[in-house]
């Protein structure tokens, strides 16, 4: 198989155990070069543990893992040389300027200093922080720090870029800026692998994803495939007031394909949400509020696990 066709990540029956606790319970994953791949799941699903194994900083407990065809237990350094990493918690150097943070990081890869400086400036432009190049990291907002971390992760021109929960804790505007930058990277052909518990992020950024829960993979496919397979086209959300949603369920039966009763609302899965809503009214029901929306990965997760993505 020519090099460019080889999957960049191949995991078979991958297990990660911390003492007695099994964080990853035997997963199979394949990520192809150039694709944008996601691990979607709630906190504690095992996404970060998986990412750390892929990043070559966490030893595999059982199973096989090959990154770029290499075994991280043997060639960890060579693998990490070709990876870019954006960790969940920023670990920038507060005492150095933005530029110096990037240059120092580049030096870890033995990139000559002059090239580091040039590359750092280029990357600061890319993440739209060039005007703050000589400023202090401590003065940056959360979104800016994350952008700086992205710039840093690109210093070694990685073939694959790993991001662990890249927009957690950021405001909506910061998230959109970040997604835009990542989308551009994707267009440049960098393989992206990210973990997230945000369904909109997964839908926006990922060509393909796996849904993880409790250390296992419960579904795999493109966002569209997953929604088509596990949900209907649209969802009607009706709210009958606090504590009164469950009692309306029998009267809603038969509308749409499926019902899901949550604490604060009832979800009616139907291909046509508006006509489902008309049916609801025609049965004499008057919900406090209603909303017709398209299905999302949140609905997929709910269907597969009975729980919401965001705990």
């Amino acid at each position, binding site marked *: 198989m020519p090099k460019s066709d080889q999957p960049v990540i191949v995991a078979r029956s991958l297990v990660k155990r911390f003492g007695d606790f099994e964080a990853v319970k035997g997963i199979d994953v394949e990520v192809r070069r150039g694709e944008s791949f996601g691990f979607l799941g709630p906190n504690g699903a095992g996404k970060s543990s998986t990412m750390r194994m892929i990043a070559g900083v966490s030893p595999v407990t059982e199973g096989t893992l090959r990154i770029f065809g290499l075994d991280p237990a043997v060639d960890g350094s060579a693998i990490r040389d070709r990876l870019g990493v954006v960790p969940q918690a920023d670990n920038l150097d507060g005492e150095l300027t933005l530029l110096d943070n990037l240059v120092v990081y580049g030096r870890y890869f033995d990139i000559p200093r002059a090239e580091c400086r040039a590359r750092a400036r280029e990357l600061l432009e890319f993440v739209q922080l060039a005007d703050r190049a000589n400023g202090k990291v401590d003065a940056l907002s959360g979104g800016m720090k994350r952008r700086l971390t992205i710039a840093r992760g690109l210093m*070694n021109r990685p073939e694959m870029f790993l991001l662990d929960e890249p927009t957690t804790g950021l405001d909506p505007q910061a998230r959109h800026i970040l997604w835009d930058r990542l989308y551009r990277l994707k267009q440049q052909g960098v393989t992206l692998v990210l973990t997230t518990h945000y369904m909109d992020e997964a839908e926006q950024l990922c060509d393909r994803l796996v849904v993880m829960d409790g250390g296992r993979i419960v579904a795999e496919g493109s966002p569209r495939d997953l929604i088509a397979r596990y949900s209907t086209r649209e969802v009607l959300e009706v709210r009958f007031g606090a504590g009164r949603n469950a009692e309306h369920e029998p009267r809603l039966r038969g509308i749409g394909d499926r019902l899901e009763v949550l604490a604060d609302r009832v979800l009616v899965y139907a291909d046509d949400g508006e006509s489902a809503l008309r049916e609801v009214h025609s049965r004499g029901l008057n919900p406090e509020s209603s909303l017709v929306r398209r299905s999302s990965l949140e609905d997929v997760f709910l269907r597969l696990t009975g729980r919401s993505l965001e705990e």
Partner: protein
Amino acid sequence: MQSLLLKRIWKTNLTLSFLQPLFFFLGMGLGVGSLVNDRPTSAEALGNVSYVAFLGPGLLATTAMLTAAGESLWPVLGGFKWDGTYEAMAATRLTAAQVVRGQFLWLAVRMGIAVGGVAVVLAVHPDTRTWGVLPAVPAALLCGLVFTAWLTAWAASREYDSSFSMVQRMVVTPLFLFGGAFYPVDSLPDWLRPVAWVTPLWHGVELCRGFVLHTLGAADLLLHVSVLVVWLVPGWIVCNRFFARRLYR
């Protein structure tokens, strides 16, 4: 094979790190020295040199130790827990072993500056102005590296800094006071002297003083360096093990 040396740009103010030993030298050396030198029994006890000449070289070794202590406890734990510095490094092509090497190199530079500052002061003062100051600097650094190794290993194994003050108070400070820098260890009670002979600081002090005062014989040189190496090697190994364990969970 790529160079294994880590280069870290540190824009903190390094010039201050040799002012403290300078003050010691001036305060203790000149101040206490003027008291000590007047007493007739002093000359023999100190080996027929002035107190400044006795103390000065000792301060090379103690400065290395104190610098190591200052940089290897809280900053190392911080590097793991609060700043994520080591985690950031380990995510790159660097291995844990290279991170440790870089940490030691960084400490050697820090100690080098502090010890270098003291060496400059020694070179200026007539009682200690001698070529012997030159080899005393790496001797002091070797001594300092022993403390670097064990204190870094200690910090790397901790989740909290609660033990650090105690380490400073119960290990570093007693060594500083009883390690032979300020007075000959022969002045210590009989039962305490062998304890001093085991400590890396005493060997560091003896090496430095031996170089500067030209009293170091080949056998003594070999002995002191060997003891320091015997202290250093396991410390180095333990450091590597702890860093790898912590970085590759």
